[in-house]
């Protein structure tokens, strides 16, 4: 009995000591080391149509890497719903993977935590130099003027997917190049009893991607040049209103899409219920849902007038996945080698083909697989008319606040309320006030 009590007293003391030490801080702040040169852990984002598909794509490549270097990569495919939370907890605790994928729009936000290895000239040198990567992709790797927090891995761009049969049926000769044309074509499509344009009204990130490009087309931005939130300027208000009006006024987006957040709009398109869809790299997904490649065409996303290009003619965000290394990795050399391997020309070709994405590596882009009509559109958009989302530390909060505001506006539109300029402005102002003061 006495020994039990002694043990109990010890346990209490221990737990108090732990509690005290916990108050001292969450994680080790030290840099990387090479304590564990033979293993790596890797968090891959979910790129394929299912997690199991991703495993099948990645496993052979990782085996290849092990054969080349003797380093075993333990990997986990993290669903998108979990990824940011997992990265956040890993950052807080210092217990994370060595290498991980991040959505490229998060680069600046995660860079601000200081948890990711900066890619200075020396580190870039180890993977073949910065010049190997496409400029637009590098534009979404962290705050301008600082060393990138990540390296581009897969690139994507928005395109207009249209159903050829519905277009033929409605007597539309070519996909719309401007928003006015899209709305006009929409009337013809509706006359045939089909939905015009699919959207994910309750998906916060999708909303951001679209209103951001609309803002560019109105010559505006959501942040000032020195990185301050400026959500309610006239251009931004007009941009958000134009997007929501596609449902509220133009009736191009069906009301039901206001509650979509799980890619239901892709299913609708694949089933032939919707004539058009703005999506990034939907090919593999559409194929998986049984839509034949012959049934749909791919065109650049419409602009206000004229042809896509720089500035106000932008028609897509730079979408993509970046690869980052956790600063406190125990296998810094191995992690760098792994990034080098994954961004090598050969691997880039294999992986981007598997995911129907565009390689951000110049040397891999020359592969004929990326010159099919579909990929040519994406490649061209990335090269000429895609803009990176704001590279500011508060980007993640921007996605949440403004994305939610747009979601609420869609809900209003779906409920049959008219969406006025004042209402949009009020919502955006409220979103702006919720941003952190500093």
């Amino acid at each position, binding site marked *: *009995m006495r020994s*039990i*009590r002694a043990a*109990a007293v010890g*346990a*209490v003391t221990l*737990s108090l000591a732990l*509690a005290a030490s*916990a*108050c*001292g*801080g*969450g*994680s080790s*702040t030290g840099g990387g080391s090479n304590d564990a040169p033979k293993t790596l852990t890797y968090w891959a984002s979910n790129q394929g149509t299912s997690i199991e598909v991703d495993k099948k794509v990645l496993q052979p490549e990782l085996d290849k890497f092990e054969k080349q270097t003797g380093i075993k990569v333990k990997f986990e495919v993290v669903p998108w719903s979990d990824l940011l*939370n997992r990265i*956040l907890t890993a*950052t*807080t605790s*210092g217990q994370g993977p060595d290498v991980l994928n991040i959505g490229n729009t998060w680069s600046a*936000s995660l860079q*601000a*935590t*200081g*948890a990711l290895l900066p890619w200075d000239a020396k580190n870039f040198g180890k993977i073949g130099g910065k010049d190997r990567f496409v400029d637009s992709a590098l534009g979404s790797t962290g705050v301008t003027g600082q060393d990138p927090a990540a390296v581009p891995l897969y690139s994507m761009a928005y395109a207009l997917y249209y159903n050829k049969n519905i277009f033929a049926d409605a007597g539309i000769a070519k996909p719309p190049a401007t928003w006015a044309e899209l709305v006009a074509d929409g009337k013809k499509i509706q006359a045939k009893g089909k939905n015009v344009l699919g959207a994910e*009204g*309750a998906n*916060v990130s999708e909303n951001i991607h679209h209103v951001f490009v609309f803002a560019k087309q109105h010559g505006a931005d959501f942040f000032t040049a020195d990185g301050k939130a400026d959500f309610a300027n006239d251009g931004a208000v007009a941009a958000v209103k134009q997007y929501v009006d596609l449902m509220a006024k133009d009736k191009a987006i069906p*009301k*039901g899409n*206001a*509650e979509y*957040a799980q890619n239901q709009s892709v299913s609708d398109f694949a089933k032939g219920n919707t004539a058009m869809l703005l999506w990034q790299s939907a090919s593999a997904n559409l194929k998986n849902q049984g839509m034949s490649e012959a049934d749909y065409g791919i065109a650049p996303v419409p602009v206000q007038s004229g042809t896509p290009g720089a500035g106000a003619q932008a028609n897509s965000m730079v979408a993509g996945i970046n690869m980052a290394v956790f600063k406190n990795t125990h296998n810094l050399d191995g992690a760098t080698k792994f990034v080098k391997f994954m961004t090598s020309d050969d691997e880039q070709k294999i992986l981007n083909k598997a995911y129907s994405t565009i390689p951000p590596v110049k040397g891999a882009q020359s592969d004929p697989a990326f010159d099919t009509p579909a990929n040519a559109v994406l490649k061209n958009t990335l090269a000429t008319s895609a803009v990176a989302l704001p590279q500011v*530390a508060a980007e*993640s*909060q921007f996605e*949440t*606040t403004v*994305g*939610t505001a747009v*979601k*609420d506006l*869609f*809900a*209003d539109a*779906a*409920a049959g309320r008219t969406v006025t300029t004042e209402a949009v402005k009020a919502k955006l102002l*409220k979103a702006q*006030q*919720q941003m*952190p003061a*500093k």
Partner: protein
Amino acid sequence: MTGTVRSDTAKVRSARGDFSPGAVRGPRRPGRIKRIGLPYLLLLPALLLELLVHLVPMVIGITMSFKELTQFYIRDWGTAPWSGIDNYRLSVDVNGPVGDALLHSFLVTVAFTLLSVGLCWAIGTTAAIYMQDTFRGRGLLRTVFLIPYALPVYAAVITWAFMFQHDNGLVNHVLHDQLHLTDQPSFWLIGDNSFYALLTVSVWKGWPFAFLIVMAGLQNIPHELYEAAALDGAGLWQQIRRITLPSLRPVNQVLVLVLFLWTFNDFNTPYVLFGKSAPEAADLISVHIYQSSFVTWNFGTGSAMSVLLLLFLLVVTGLYLLLTSRGRKTADA
């Protein structure tokens, strides 16, 4: 809850006299120290776990609420600067957007909780009273009624989400297509109706617990009371009003409190139904705080909000116990 336990144990003790097995003489009578130590030893595992999982984290959480814990500092939160009561000031400033949103969410939660607890209690009690007598199929019905409570939250709520879809859901199919009650299909997962959607799911899931507890409580009502009332010529409704409901008072006291706390703090239901950003009309406080901390990466403000919530619950529970136990005493006397 605490009040009941205390008064009940007190009652038991005064009725039977306090008693400790260690004090009984027997062949293996434990020594004095062990006798004093034993209850503590029995409590030790529970105490340690409470300390580890509840109390120490709570202290850490309170500490965090006084820090500026944004994305710039989460990597090593010990070095995050102290921000005094800034987080609290931000949270309660109802003229600012953060405080305003918190207040809105708080009011939504209060309205939701009151309605949900009220409905759960009313349905559960009615069903329990109706099923007090035996009739054919009673056992089966009781089993059926417990299914919502037994189903894992995730499975139940995702099914409701499926039914509440705008285009393809059962609810709109029935209300609009079949019964023609609405001019056009309604939205349940976004906009103002989301409040009712959430309430429906919450009541569906919660009322069987009230049913279960009231059913158990009914069995503790002495049969003689009804007989005496019947002799006095009281009809069935009068019996329910004069005997059943007053006798259920102590049961209800506990039941309502437990339901209140569970509903108020419920995170699983809104999170599974609406995802990470709930519609304004159904922005329950637990999800609101989750969003304030995890989605916008401001853990200091999120912690301050949780501490305020905890204080509110402590005050409400304290007042509730004070009022209801006083009422009980007068009723008993």
